Every structure is written in C-alpha cells, then in structure tokens.
C-alpha cells in the first residue's frame, strides 16, 4: 500500500469518527422529583399534596393519618420494604396513644420507641429515605419529619460461596444486602480501626457503596485515590459491582482484571490486613478489592487454611495450570504443524496414524474442538440446573467420542482440549479464567500462523502488556517484576506459602503504613 492511500484511509476514518461523535448527545434526565428541593412545610395538607404528587402511581407507598388527642400525624412508608411488626410496635402504637399536644421535634422523637431515627427538613432527603425503605413521620405544625429506620429488605440469607468454593475454611459468602455484608467483615475484624465509608452513587438507583479499609495499615493515598475515582462513577444505575469496577480500574482496555472481585468475606478481611481497600456495592454479592496483582488471582483462600507445604505444592501446580490453560492447545498446533521433529518419535508415529483421514489442518481441528468446548461450557452455565446435566452428558459424548469416530478430529486433540479445560477450571478467580479463555484462541491462531515463533512472540507481547499495567500504583506483576531486593520478603507468598510463624511483615508492595505484623 502506498503512502497516499494510507493517508486517504486515515482521513476517511477521521471523518467517520467525527460524524459519530456529533451524533452522541449527553443524556438529560428531567425528573421533577430529582430536581426540586424544598423545605418541609408545617402544614400537613401541603405535605400530603407533595407526597401524592411525587409518589404518584407508586402503589406500595403507604400513608397513614393518625388523629390522636389534638394531634394530626402522618406516617409514610413503603409497604414492600418495611418490617410491619416493628412499625406497629415502634411508631403506630405510641403515636395513637399520645394525648398531650406535640409541638416540638424533641417531643416527637421521645415518643417513638425505635432504635435509630433522624431529623430531616428537606424533601429531597425525605424522598431519598423513603425510597430506601425508611419510614417517615410528619406532625401538624412542625416543619420537618422524623425518619425511622425499620427497613426489612427482601433478600436471601447468607449462603455458601458458589464461585469460590473451598473445602476448608469459612463457608460464608456475601449476599445482596450491604448491611449484612459489612457485618460479615466486622465479624472478622473487631476493631474501630476498620473504617466503613458509605456513599450513594447512581442518579436513579441511589446505590450505596461502602469503602472499607483498616486505618493505620492502608497507605492513605490509596483511599484518597479510590474516593477520587468513585467521584467519576456517573451512571443512572449501579446494579452490580462490576459497574463500579469498570470505572475505577486502571487499565479499562485490558482483558485482564485489574480489580479483584471476590464473594468471600474472609478474603476481604485478610486483604484489608495486607493494606488493601475493599468496596462493597449494594445489591451485589461480589465485592471489589484494590490494589491487586496478577499473582493475587492465583492465590486461593484455601492456601492459607491447609498445611503450608501442601499449599505451596498446589499453588505451584496452579501457576503451571494457568499457563498451560493459555498455551497448551497453541503448543499442540505449533508442534504438529511446524515442528514435527520436536515430538518424540513413537508419539509422532501414533499421532500420524490417528491423524490419517482427517480433512482439516491441525489448527482448524483445534479451533473446532475449542469452540465446541466453549459452547458447551456456556450452554451448561445458562441452562437451568436440571437440563444442564443432560447437556453435559451430550457434550461429553460429542466431545469424547462422536467427533473422533466421525473423523472430524483426532483423539489427541480431544485430550488436549479437555486437559486445557481442566487447567482453566483450576484458576481460583473466575475473571482471570475468563481472560485465559479468550486469549487462548489468539494463541492458537498465532501458533497456526507462525508455530513456536508465533507463540514466543505473543507470550512476549503478553508479558510486556502485563508488565506495563498497574493497579492503584502497584505494578501488575509485582513482586516478580519489578523485583526489588529490599522487598525480597514479598516472594514468600507468590509461588510459595510461607508458614504463618514466618509472616513478620505485611506485603511491601502495597506500601502499608504499619509494615510489621505485631
């Protein structure tokens, strides 16, 4: 291609880009309830009219007017999110029995037999509290309202971890309820040094995000940076922690996770003690951990719950399995289509015998098998559990036998693909497994084009990419690259798992304030 046509191509591309940009307009939400902010008036009629206007067509809003003694009181709550018994005992009963006239805020607050209450005077706050499930009490002649927390969210109980299941160790996983999730961490770190800062994000959903860290351990700049990045989360709805993760991660265009996502409170607790920060997002059982490194994705929580020698062996195995889940099919392709001399003689004779009559080149064969395998995996995940089993039976038959006897692929390819599958399942964190799942295909294509040379080239590119990334200032491949001799102690928890007796310092890559473990 000559330079002229290259420039022409670039010009065309630019034109298309600018056109596309002009079409994109920022979204504007014109919802009155989210915009006006007025003081609560002492006049109950005005209060009721505001409520009926703002909460129009909200069937679950309950308004109860109480006339007790000389007082006119209004209790408002969302029927779907309130503990009805507590409401009855704590608010309705004491208010119906009152006989003196209520004239002040303090008087109203002493009447209510509830644990926590707040005084709000602005409608924006009150509407937000109402939508969060809290109950509100208005009284005639008082410019303000008492907000009472009697929330009982519908949701499930704490259950066993599903994604990061383990044989040993605690069997609790986070759930969708943020209060319970914070409780699960508090249960493990009983100290006022455990700080929990809650923010609301999401212009419509008002999702609570809890920023959790241990003061005196974490490097303060990490907290500051995290807060600053949370400012940038500009969405109308946050339904899962990944919504936040994509905003706060360092390298948004990489396939590798730069934010660790976990459902285990024990993982969060131990990470907090290492000097890392956690984010819990309301409505998501997956919490976020920053900063993170590649190697923390290959450390299972179970490593710390069993004999350290066994754990070291298993961890080494896991590292090998991770790389083989990336490279095994590619190596097979490279050896069989470029470097036949590298295969042991007798194995090659056997492969040659089994390969006879297969119409596809090895790279196509492997790609076919990988695609079949990935589709089965996806189908097995998405289907209801009862049908999923039958899919796996059909899949085993298709992969194992039918494809071979139909002359579509050779038996060794089936073995390589299933070995790769097993290897990829051994990565403890799902997100890293996903990355290797996708990258595997490009490695296969690279091996098909250039053989071992292509694999080496791509591994180098991958290593350069990994080494160039950072997560909240911590190099992604730390503590291997950069290797710092003064921080050589960090090596004890990468490929090995040192016994707890020898854990004298926190990992230095997170630059914790308090380096010594007392």
């Amino acid at each position, binding site marked *: 291609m000559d330079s002229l046509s290259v420039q022409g191509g670039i010009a065309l591309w630019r034109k298309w880009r600018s056109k596309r940009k002009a079409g994109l307009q920022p979204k504007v939400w014109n919802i009155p309830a989210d915009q006006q902010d007025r003081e609560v008036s002492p006049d109950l009629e005005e209060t009721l009219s505001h409520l009926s206007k703002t909460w129009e067509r909200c069937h679950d809003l309950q308004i109860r007017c109480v006339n007790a003694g000389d007082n006119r009181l209004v209790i408002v709550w969302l029927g779907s999110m309130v503990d009805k018994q507590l409401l009855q005992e704590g608010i309705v009963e004491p208010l119906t029995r009152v006989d003196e006239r209520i004239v002040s805020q303090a008087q109203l607050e002493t009447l209510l037999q509830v644990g926590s209450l707040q005084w709000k005077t602005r409608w924006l706050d009150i509407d937000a509290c109402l939508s969060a499930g809290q109950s509100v009490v208005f009284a005639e002649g008082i410019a303000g309202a008492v907000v009472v927390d009697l929330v009982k969210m519908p949701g499930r109980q704490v259950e066993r971890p599903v994604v990061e299941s383990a044989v040993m160790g605690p069997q609790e996983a986070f759930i969708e309820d943020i209060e319970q999730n914070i409780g699960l961490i508090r249960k493990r770190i009983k100290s006022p040094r455990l700080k929990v800062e809650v923010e609301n994000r999401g212009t419509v959903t008002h999702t609570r995000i809890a920023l959790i860290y241990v003061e005196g351990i974490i490097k303060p700049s990490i907290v500051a940076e995290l807060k600053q990045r949370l400012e940038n989360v500009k969405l109308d709805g946050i339904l899962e922690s990944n919504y936040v993760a994509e905003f706060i991660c360092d390298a948004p265009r990489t396939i590798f996770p730069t934010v660790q996502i976990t459902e285990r409170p024990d993982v969060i607790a131990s990470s907090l003690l290492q000097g890392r920060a956690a984010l819990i997002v309301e409505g998501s059982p997956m919490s976020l951990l920053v900063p993170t490194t590649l190697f923390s994705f290959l450390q299972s929580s179970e490593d710390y719950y069993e004999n350290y020698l066994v754990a070291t062996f298993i961890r080494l195995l896991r590292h090998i399995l991770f790389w083989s889940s990336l490279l095994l099919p590619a190596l097979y392709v490279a050896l069989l289509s470029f470097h036949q001399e590298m295969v042991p003689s007798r194995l090659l004779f056997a492969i040659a015998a089994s390969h006879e009559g297969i119409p596809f080149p*090895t790279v196509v064969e492997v790609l076919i098998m990988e695609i079949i395998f990935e589709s089965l995996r996806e189908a097995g995940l998405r289907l209801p559990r009862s049908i999923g089993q039958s899919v796996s039976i059909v899949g085993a038959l298709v992969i194992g036998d039918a494809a071979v006897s139909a002359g579509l692929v050779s038996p060794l390819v089936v073995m390589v693909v299933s070995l790769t599958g097993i290897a990829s399942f051994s990565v403890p964190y799902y997100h890293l497994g996903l990355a290797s799942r996708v990258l595997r295909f490009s490695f296969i294509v690279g091996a098909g084009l250039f053989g071992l040379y292509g694999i080496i080239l791509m591994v180098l590119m991958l290593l350069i990419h990994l080494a160039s990334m950072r997560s909240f200032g911590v190099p992604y491949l730390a503590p291997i690259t950069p290797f710092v001799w003064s921080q050589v102690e960090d090596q004890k928890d990468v490929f090995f798992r040192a016994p707890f007796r020898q854990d004298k310092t926190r990992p230095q890559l997170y630059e914790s304030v308090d380096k010594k473990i007392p």
Partner: protein
Amino acid sequence: MRMNKVVTRRAFCLILAAVGLFLAACGDKTEITDLTIVTGLGIDQDGKNVRVTVQVRKAGEGAQSAGGTGQQGESGSQYINLAASGKTVEEAVQNLRKIIPRRLYFAHNTVVVFGRQFAKNGIDSALDFLLRSREFRRTQLFCVTSGTARDVLDANVGAEQVTALGLQRLLLPEDIEFFVVKITEILFLNELLSPSHVPVMTWIDVKRGQAILQGVALFRGDKLAELLPTQLAQSLFLLRGETETYTVELPCKQPGQKSMFRVRFIQRELKPVRKGEDVSFYVRIRGTAEPIEMCGGNFLKPETIREMGKDVNDELQRQLRKTVVFLQRRKLDGAMFGSAVYRSDPQWWRAHSKEWPQMFARVSVRIDTQVEVTRPGMTTTTPESNYTPELFPPKSVPGGNQP
C-alpha cells in the same frame, strides 16, 4: 485533538500490522498427513549404483485404523519398505521422492543400516548426505550387516511390529548384562575423527527372517575392515572401557558342561607407558565375578571359590590377549590405544602418528586383571544335589549331609 490523531494513527498501524500477520497465511506449515515419516534407512551397493531403502508407514484408511495392528512382512503390515537406486545416496533419495507422493521426512529416522559391500567401499558419501541434511538426528543408530541392508529392514525383530523401531531397541543396550554398546551417528563420527581412526559399528545379520546381533564391525577410516563375532566384540568393548559387565565361560570336568561367570562392576584403566621413543601399554582391570551357571556337584567352599577366581582371571586374561593379538595382526587400533597416547602426549603423537598402524602392531601390552568371585547368587548348589533320602541338612551347609 492532537492526542486523538496520534491514537487514530496508532490504531490504524496496529490494524495494518495485524492484517499483515495473516498475509503469512501459514507459510511453511506442514501437516502430519502431508509427511512420509521415515523410521529406518538402509544403504546398499547395487552394482555401480547405490540403493537406498526407506521404511515408512503406510497411509491408513482413516481414523479407524489408528488402533489397528499389523505384523511386519505380512499382509496386515502398517509399514512398508521402499527402495530406489542412484549414482549417489542423494540421487537415490531424489529417485525415492519420485515414487513417494508425500514429503519424505527424515527427522524421526531411528536407524541407518549399511550393507557390507557399500561399507567396504567407504561410507563417506553417505555420511556427507546424513550430515548435510537438516532433518537427520545425530542420535540415530548406525549398524552394518554382512548381507544387504534391505534384508535387515525386511526382517522380523523379536516381537516388535516395526522393524526399524525393533532394531532401535536391539541396538540400545537396555539390559545391563548385555555387551552391546550404543553406536550413534555422533559417536561414530567422534571415533572416526579420533587419533586411532578405527570407528566401530554394531553388526546385525538376518537368520531365518530374524534380525540377530552378531557382534561388532571395525572400520579402517570410513571403510569396513573386519567383522568381530560376539566373544571378541565383548573383549574389545572391555578394552575400550565401554562396558561394565563381561561373561566368562569355563569348561567343566564333566564333558558337555560348562560354568559361566559374569564379571560386574568392572573398572578398567588404560595407561600408555613411554620409554624413550617407544611406547607400551598397561591395561588394568578390576571387577567382581558372580557365577551364573555352575558345574554339577560344585559347592561353594572357600577353596573352590578361590580356585574359581583364579580360573576366571586366567580365562579373562586369555580372551583379552586373544583380542589384542587379533587387532595387532590386522593393524587395527580398535581398542583406542592411539587415542590414549594422544591424550597423554599430543606432541609425541604428532611426531609418530603416520607410522602408528605399523607401530601398533608391535607395541607390547601388559594386561593386569584381578577378578574376585564374591556372590554366589540366590543359591549355592542345585536342588537335586542337596537331596538325601534321609533328609539330612544340605551338603552346602557346614556339617551338612553328615549322619
């Protein structure tokens, strides 16, 4: 805006580079099914021409044949020998390519068999071909046959399915009590270029359709000089210090019987002794012997053992002496004495290397062997000779067989 331009240009270049990758389009990719994998190679003299035989796998009918079995030389065989002739080895291989539709692939060749006639004329041209090609491994095994290489590749090897792979097994000394030493291409070349200039190669023949190890072939340079049968070959390897076991046979008093001893843990030392311009050699051999077959009625008393040790020693020395005389008579320094001199005194060697074959025929060799019979094995005497009708304790036990 400037940043955007840079990013756009960079993205464009990346896309170009990525597309460029695909232009390679699997350039030198070769599928396994496009190869004819050669497992064995035979080189024979064919009148004035050279005949090259390759053993290759038959192209199967499909995946079903993967587990199929076949017997060599029979209708169900999976392997076939193809041959072509030419003026040189390379030309013969070129002619082979004319009859084989897939690419001839030599990287997995396991064994090269030389026919006697070809080897006698010199294998230098074949070595040139084997060394020049990128595909051949330096670890492929070499052997020579007194007949034709073609016959060896056609023969059966034990219960092995593929002759070439069977030959590979036969030529690799898996059994520690066996005398054969592995001779690969690289080892042969090392010996060819060593001061002694007498490389050796394993000798294999065909008898009744079965390949059989016969001994060892001595080359003078690249030309086959002499074929040594098993007993001599065994002694030769002992002199060269390449084997750790040696089998000694002794006649018994009873006619038609013999006892056998296996000398193990052999330590061999070869010292050239220079006196002025003259050189002599001192071979020191130490080892322990173990009876593997005994004459009838022979019991392991201390005196018997001492006596047996002496006999074994004498026999071993006799065999070694016989081998040295054999070599000296033919002026073939197969025991690598020349290399030993060269290692100890290169300057002397350089001055005398030209007349070495003549000198070797005259050098005096002192052989010092000392072998002790130690372990009797799992039994001291045969069960029948231990039997007495009265069921007395066995005779081999001190005080046994006495009423």
